[in-house]
């Protein structure tokens, strides 16, 4: 099997001794999409940093078959694009164009390649035309998309996103979801961490429930209907699934659990039809 990410027995402790990750093992196939879910302090961001070789614990992390190790770091960073939670941590240059060109230039790309990749990344995130703007003059939603462009311009095969929709207004959130879905369809492997349980069915095929150790991993539609399991971790079910699972418990619904609006509408139609 061709794995994008293969983590085996990964443990990590902070310098003051706090255990962040304990014997974490999982695999994600190439082209897959995975959401890391867990309460605050569960180690989600710490795990994501391992995929880019930014920190290293004990155990093994393999990216597209390559061990994450010092001698592979440039290869790893070329193939794993990282988007941090706070875009202001990522946007470091005085203009948007230079920020998006920062990664490709570090990779030693030619001027033509840099220009091509920067234009493409800005086009994809919908910020073409704002090349000369300074990052501080962008709105928060634009900054989030700009941060995504800084990773995309390196043409990564794997995209790692820490809370990609946090603090976004509904419209910007929708834009980011659509954008990530398009990237996923184009073959990019997506790994994201989030607290937003309603976002998970829209973006990920698989879910890894993490609380310093792996609590559960499986298909999104299986994990996200496990009310007790989610509640134990301080999480909740997605809104539609929660409602229809309650209706199921009351004997008023026996279809497939809906996770998104269109599925919920179909499920409602089914209930109305049964009543008639």
């Amino acid at each position: 099997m061709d794995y994008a990410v293969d983590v085996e027995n990964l443990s990590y402790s902070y310098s003051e001794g706090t255990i962040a990750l304990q014997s974490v093992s999982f695999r994600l196939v190439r082209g897959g999409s995975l959401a890391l879910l867990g309460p605050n302090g569960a180690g989600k961001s710490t795990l994501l940093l391992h995929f880019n070789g930014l920190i290293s614990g004990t155990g093994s992390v393999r990216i597209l078959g390559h061990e994450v190790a010092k001698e592979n770091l440039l290869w790893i960073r070329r193939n794993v694009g990282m988007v941090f939670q706070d875009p202001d941590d990522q946007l470091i240059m005085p203009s948007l164009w230079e920020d998006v060109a920062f990664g490709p230039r570090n990779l030693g790309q030619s001027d033509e390649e840099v220009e091509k990749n920067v234009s493409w990344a800005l086009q994809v995130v919908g910020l073409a035309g704002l090349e000369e703007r300074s990052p501080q003059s962008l709105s928060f939603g634009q900054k989030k998309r700009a941060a995504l462009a800084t990773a995309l311009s390196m043409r990564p095969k794997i995209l790692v996103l820490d809370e990609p929709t946090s603090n976004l207004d509904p419209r910007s959130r929708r834009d980011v979801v659509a954008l990530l879905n398009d990237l996923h369809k184009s073959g990019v492997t997506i790994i994201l961490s989030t607290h937003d349980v309603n976002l998970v069915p829209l973006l990920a095929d698989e879910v890894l429930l993490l609380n310093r150790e792996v609590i559960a991993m499986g298909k999104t539609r299986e994990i996200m209907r496990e009310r007790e399991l989610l509640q134990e971790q301080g999480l909740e079910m997605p809104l539609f699934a929660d409602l229809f699972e309650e209706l199921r418990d009351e004997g008023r619904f026996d279809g497939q659990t809906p996770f998104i609006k269109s599925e919920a509408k179909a499920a409602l139609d089914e209930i109305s039809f049964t009543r008639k």
Partner: protein
Amino acid sequence: MNPELFAGQTSIIHVWDPRARIVSMSLLIVSITSLQSLYLALLGFALALGFLIISRIPLKLALRSLKWPVLFLAPFLLILPFTVQGDSELSFSFIAISHQGMALGALIFLKGLAAVALAQVMLGCCPFTASALALRDLGLPDTLVQIFLFSYRYIDLLSQELHSVFRSISARGFEMQSSRRTARVYGNAFGTLLLRSFARSERMFLAMLSRGYYGQLPPGAPVSMQLADGMKGLTVVAIAVALKLLEVKIWTMQ
């Protein structure tokens, strides 16, 4: 002053190679700020205004960005006439305004404004990164250039964080007073800001590493200087030298 405020315009200064511009304009600034003659300082100020006009920097915006330097320099103009001993120009009871004080105040004021106006022309006509990379091409260590670049971006962010820290303490009813408690609260607020800045710089460094950063700025495209760039630079250097020669001539005539 936002050094990139006028980068979008086009003029003879905008198309001038930043390396030649920085070297020659810096020499002109040094030449003007070292003048001791009030008349030549006035000429230097007029030259600076001339450069501003040639650069097509909108005069309204340029004057607006001179607001803070004027506020900083105005005290020299207002205080020195009363404090420098010399030939009395005017006197009211115990207050005397000296001729030398007025001249010195005006000299400092004019030279200061000329320097700031020329700095606007020097740095404001191209993106800040182009100026910073030009400094690197001129031999400034890469580390210093990176500090300039990243500071430029993060000054704004730090001011936002400072603002949020002070908004947070104001929201909880804090009012500034001349008391030990105020000093303690301010100390804590700046301490918080320091810790936040430290945490942010760590996250920022990780974000840079994730994009292949290896401790040095990636090289920009090599740009060769044209004859026109050199000629412009030589003209500005000639003006700087001429000002100093004029000053020497005035001294020898006295």
